[in-house]
């Protein structure tokens, strides 16, 4: 038998369905905030979303144009590498499938870039197929700036640092290019079910 922490019993699953909680995570009911710098605030009149890089023609939407794209509401579980998971969170956003339909690309990799300079990298395969969105509402309300508003990437099947707050564009690339946390010790892919937290996990 392995190591046992003397005297530790634990609070167990917080009543949550353990099949929905990845290893090393615990369920929270509030919505913690983590970001590496001050919260950027960009007026919607200056906000745009771009698809650039290895595409036949770069695309750019103003806020109004972006909001006219077909959007959907969806309920997902989210998992932060700092150990909290939040179940049944409801968002509204435009799926990346809808966005990427609008460009011709053979790129295998993507880098999301953001106000404030944050970046994160993902395989294009993790963005397509109705599993990734540019979300602009949380729980029926406009997304708070501290949670990434006006719009953030949301890729709930990966740790939440991949769900870049304040996203302003996606660069499609032939080569993988590690982003902000991925060059600061965090795993390149970040699958919570395989507990890919840090380099080497």
């Amino acid at each position, binding site marked *: 038998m392995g190591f046992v*922490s003397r005297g*530790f019993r634990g609070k167990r699953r917080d009543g949550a369905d353990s099949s929905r909680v990845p290893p090393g995570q615990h369920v929270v009911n509030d919505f913690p905030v983590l970001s590496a710098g001050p919260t950027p605030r960009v007026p919607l009149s200056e906000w745009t979303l771009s698809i650039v890089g290895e595409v036949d023609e770069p695309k750019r939407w103003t806020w109004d144009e972006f909001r006219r794209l077909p959007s959907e509401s969806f309920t997902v579980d989210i998992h932060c590498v*700092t*150990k909290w998971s939040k179940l049944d969170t409801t968002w509204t956003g435009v799926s990346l499938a809808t966005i990427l339909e609008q460009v011709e690309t053979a790129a295998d990799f993507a880098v999301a870039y953001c106000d404030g300079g944050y970046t994160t990298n993902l395989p294009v395969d993790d963005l397509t197929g109705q599993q990734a969105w540019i979300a602009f509402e949380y729980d029926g309300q406009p997304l708070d700036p501290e949670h990434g508003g006006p719009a953030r990437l949301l890729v709930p099947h990966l740790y939440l640092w991949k769900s870049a707050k304040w996203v302003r564009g996606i660069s499609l690339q032939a080569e993988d290019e590690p982003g902000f946390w991925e060059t600061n010790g965090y795993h390149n892919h970040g699958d919570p079910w395989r507990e890919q937290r840090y380099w080497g996990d």
Partner: protein
Amino acid sequence: MARAAVLGRLTWQLGEVAELIQETPRVSSLVIDLPDWPGHLAGQHVDVRLTAEDGYQAQRSYSIASAPEAPRVTLTVERLEDGEVSPYLVGEVRVGDKVELRGPIGGYFVWRAGDARPLLLVAGGSGIVPLMAMIRHHAAAGSAAPVRLLYSSRSIEDVIYKDELAQLVAGDKRVAVAHTLTRMQPSGWDGYGRRIDGEMVGEVAWPKKDGPAVFVCGPTAFVETASGLLVESGYDPAWIRTERFGATGG
């Protein structure tokens, strides 16, 4: 020794609690002997993993409070009454117990003594912990960078590292500490007695022409307010590194 040790795999290791220091009624420091510690940078954290007899495990992250130069790793932990791991680390753990952890983690919220820019540290509550690692690193390395700490606590009893901070200020003219006590101030208190605001930031923070390095750590609302005030005062957001925690650290 003080080099980043995030390269390569972070493996779990067992440390032995060598010393416990009660910092405040709700906060304790665990001084841990780690035979295989690879070294850390000031500002980094570790993951702690507790295992019950039936194999149930719980993990949380805790900031390292000790300087990279210190012979042992110190974690300072605030006990959250409805938490799962912190009531064990602050209350159950005794000297001689083993604690399983891995780290160091985080390559961004770090300060190196080679950084000569004036240093501004802004702490809310136990957000002081990673900033204390920076202050201790500053002292141990003999850094010439001037340091200002603005530290917000609820009451004088909640001020972590109070005596050590006072000694550092008394012994080093490059270090200045401004306390604010938001709920209760002792009689004769000559520090601030309110929540952080623009006037306080204007009095304590370096002028923007100095181009300081800034680290802000505390609860989310505190970090949002403090970093927002600094940006409003003309600081370049790129100077400011933040670390936040909610009430759910556990």
